[in-house]
């Protein structure tokens, strides 16, 4: 029984990562037996992991068909992009004046990593990191936490989005330009530029 709970945790972690990295894609079928064999366990802990991930919104069970990876809920996407676009300018207004050499260095490092990245599945995580770097200097703990919550689920969405070659051009040009404007002390312009970028991104991610 004890072994089961660590197996459940192991399997859940594995599946969560694979789904977030878009290695297991929306619509993929998950086979209980295959997973059980892969992990060398019975189907019992596998079933429990699948239920856990179902409650977290990653999977759905379709009657008579089985278990499938679920798309990120459109309502979730709607609401989080809305919140994001509303609070980003407010947070940046407080953050940008606190940017230091270190901030810029960190941001540019991440941009380089994204450009060099051949692995599209890491992009979501790197974009997350970029956001942390540009928003944290605001010292607005609550807001930064809201961004964290949004990113937890959005990493998955971002990975999916950027795997599409057509969207690859959005990878980092905007991020570079934003940092440039900040460095030149053009705070208002930087904020406007970033807001426009987010709105454009939102239209692509949220085709209505």
């Amino acid at each position, binding site marked *: 029984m004890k072994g089961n709970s660590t197996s459940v945790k192991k399997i859940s972690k594995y599946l969560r990562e694979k789904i977030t990295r878009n290695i297991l894609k929306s619509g993929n079928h998950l086979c209980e037996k295959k997973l059980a064999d892969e992990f060398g366990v019975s189907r019992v802990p596998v079933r429990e992991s699948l239920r856990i991930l179902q409650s977290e919104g990653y999977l759905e069970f379709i009657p008579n068909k089985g278990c499938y990876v679920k798309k990120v809920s459109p*309502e979730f996407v709607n609401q989080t992009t809305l*919140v994001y676009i509303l*609070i980003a300018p407010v947070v940046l207004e407080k953050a940008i004046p606190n940017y230091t050499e270190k901030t810029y260095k960190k941001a540019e490092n991440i941009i380089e990593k994204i450009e060099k990245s051949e692995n599209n599945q890491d992009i979501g995580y790197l974009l997350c990191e970029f956001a942390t770097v540009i928003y944290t200097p605001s010292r607005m703990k609550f807001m930064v936490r809201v961004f964290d919550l949004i990113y937890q689920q959005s990493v998955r969405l971002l990975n999916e989005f950027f795997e599409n070659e057509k969207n690859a051009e959005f990878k980092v040009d905007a991020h570079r330009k934003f940092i440039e404007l900040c460095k030149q002390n053009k705070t208002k312009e930087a904020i406007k530029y970033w807001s426009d970028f987010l709105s454009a991104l939102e239209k692509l991610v949220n085709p209505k």
Partner: protein
Amino acid sequence: MKREKTVVNDVAAFIRQEISNSQYKSGQHIKESEIAKKMSISRVPVREAFRILQSEGYIEVIANRGSFVKKISYECIKEMAIFYKLLAPVLLEKAIPNYTKKTYKTAYNILDSIDKCENMNEIGYLLWDYAKIIYSPSKMNFILKLFDEIYMHNIRTLNEIFELRITKNYDTSSHRNFLKLCSEKKNEKAIKSWQEHLEKVEKLTLKKKNNKTSK
């Protein structure tokens, strides 16, 4: 659930009162054993009450040091107020069209309870109940969860801004006005009036801060 008549809730109410009355001041160490002694009960319910008060923002528990009356962080309140003001109109736009007769009935009931409320340390929860009624019909669950968190952490703020000296009652006229405009289908006006109300509340909070810092 939180307002059942239980020993734990009684203890929590007692401590809230002590803090509001400045019997325990900001930053002051507050001991489970002291409270247990004062109330002639065991430490078990006191411990539970401490947990509740911690989540409400009255006390903070520092590892290996103990529990202390939390200093109100106006920075934190301001932040949450910004978030709240930005998102309240968004929620209301979606919520108001979904108001039913039941929504109005429940809302007015809560406002009546607020009017009758004599214990200012209960205002916070009633205001939270009211908020749930007017915002949940938006069905925007992600944002609603964040609002819940804001209310949870600001129970103390809500209770303390309205520590009344002049009048004995919390003024629910803005709330009633809002509901009236909604029922007349004047959605935009209703949202605008609510935004004005939120600005007023924020000013009151800051006024209180300035009064407190002069203490």
